[in-house]
């Protein structure tokens, strides 16, 4: 059973979002997603300064046999990308909700965060996908 922390928000496309005290939102992919992809060999994160809208493909996670898009769950401006992933993509497998975070957004409209799924909602999505 994959981990689904209760305090995070989720997207059906398997991203999670965590609101920070400074108003920025950290984005990553879920434990379920990393486990389904298998060992990651490459992670491509968006550049700081890029403006993305909700649902826009803005990062790529690549395992030995597949490359998948990661979508921005909310719109905003990328303020930082996790520099550790370029040299150590396995971090994302090992700690998807912690050191394996992907990028930080300054939200364009913070209300979009409220439209995301909560842990229970996401758990249903995962259950239905089996």
């Amino acid at each position, binding site marked *: 059973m994959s981990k689904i922390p209760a305090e995070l928000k989720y997207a059906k496309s398997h991203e999670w979002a965590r609101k920070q005290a400074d108003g920025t939102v950290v984005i990553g992919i879920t434990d379920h997603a990393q486990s389904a992809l298998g060992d990651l060999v490459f992670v491509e994160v968006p550049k700081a300064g890029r403006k993305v809208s909700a649902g826009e493909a803005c990062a790529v996670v*690549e395992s030995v046999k597949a490359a998948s898009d990661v979508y921005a769950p909310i719109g905003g401006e990328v303020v930082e990308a996790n520099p550790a992933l370029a040299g150590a993509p396995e971090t994302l497998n090992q700690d998807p909700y912690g050191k394996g975070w992907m990028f930080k957004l300054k939200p364009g409209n913070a209300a979009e965060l409220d439209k995301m799924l909560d842990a229970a909602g996401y758990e249903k999505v995962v259950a239905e996908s089996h």
Partner: protein
Amino acid sequence: MPFVPHTEADVRDMLAAIGAKKVDDLFDEIPAELRCGELSEVPEGLPEMEIGRLMHERAQSDGLALNFIGAGAYEHHIPAAVWEITTRGEFYSAYTPYQAEASQGTLQVLYEFQSMMTALTGMDVSNASMYDGASALGEALLMAVRANARSASRKVLVPSTVHPFYRQVSDVISHAQGVTQTGLVYCAETGDTKIEQLKKFEGQDICAVVIQQPNFFGVMEDVDAITDWAHAHGALVVAVVNPTSLALLKAPGQWGATGADIVVGEGQPLGSPLSSGGPYFGFMCAKKDFVRQMPGRIVGRTVDLDGKPGFTLTLQAREQHIRRSKATSNICTNQGLLVTAATIYMSLLGPAGLARVASKSMANLKSLRAQLTRVHGVKAVFENAHFHECVIRLDRAVAPVLAELARGGIHGGYDLSKHYPELGHALLVCVTETKTEADLARYALALSAALKKAA
């Protein structure tokens, strides 16, 4: 055993399973006006004996002309062992087998090829080859657009000294994705692209600059200055190079302060015969930073479960069978057989042998250029240094002179009047290591006679 994918019974069963009456029904969504219909000009098949005889007769009518045409394809001596080995059953196949469990030999050849190409070009990575030099340039432009994070434009500067066919083909491949080529005028005296031409674009968002070295006229470009200008202005550098020339010239990886970013070219000079224009192969190398934007197949060296070294396709997540519509390219193959020949050609010659081929070609060009420009009615055109090709100008139209030379068994060169009318009666002449002093003298004499006759 002949390779017959399915029998008539198989075809019937498959059609029945999907509810189609005949194979043509599968294509009924293609409008009738787009179909070419029957191939009425194609004759009936001939038995092997008759076709063999016919082709020998046709070959004889071509004669054994002395060839001085280059313009992108180059006649080099190919050691007999190259095609003897290449056409062994282990390599000779209608298809490149990629399965690691079945094809270690083929995969190792491709891996050795990639290693040799990175050594020649001074790049970090090479793919297993492309279709030809011109389409490799098209793929390189698309790759530059993906790879250049500093540029939001799809504007590429392409000197008019880049092979005109390469400019056309790469435009056909890339324009639908919004890549626009802007030409750069060459210097009329020296035949290269001056940095002043690039300076006109300062302040604009340029994605990439293409440099061909030696350029289409055989002239050396100032690759260091152009590379540094491009990098200073946020553009990537796409180098188009002749692999034989790299045995003598500076590798693109050493151009300017940080080197070219993507290197492509025509691989034919490495062991493929001229053969009326093909099949040839293209090559593509790049800096490691851009490997995930590189199209085509890449063979890697790895270890198996028991720790033994082996070879396998790698980085396939870039390719269309995995990445679908977001793949780097629709190319998921390579020119395996031609690359096998190139790898054997390079192994037999070695770096020193390849350098001797290049030096002898250059020495022959110097001699031929001196002899031709002594002929009455012939002038040298560009002053810069050349590599095995140069432009001369005649005092009258080129085509009739070439026709007269051909009647005497000499292919005198490539008529530039169509693509470069501003050069007047200009002829691009090529000479490689395959010609002797006597051949060069014969050409000079024949040209002199042809010009007198045409006068």
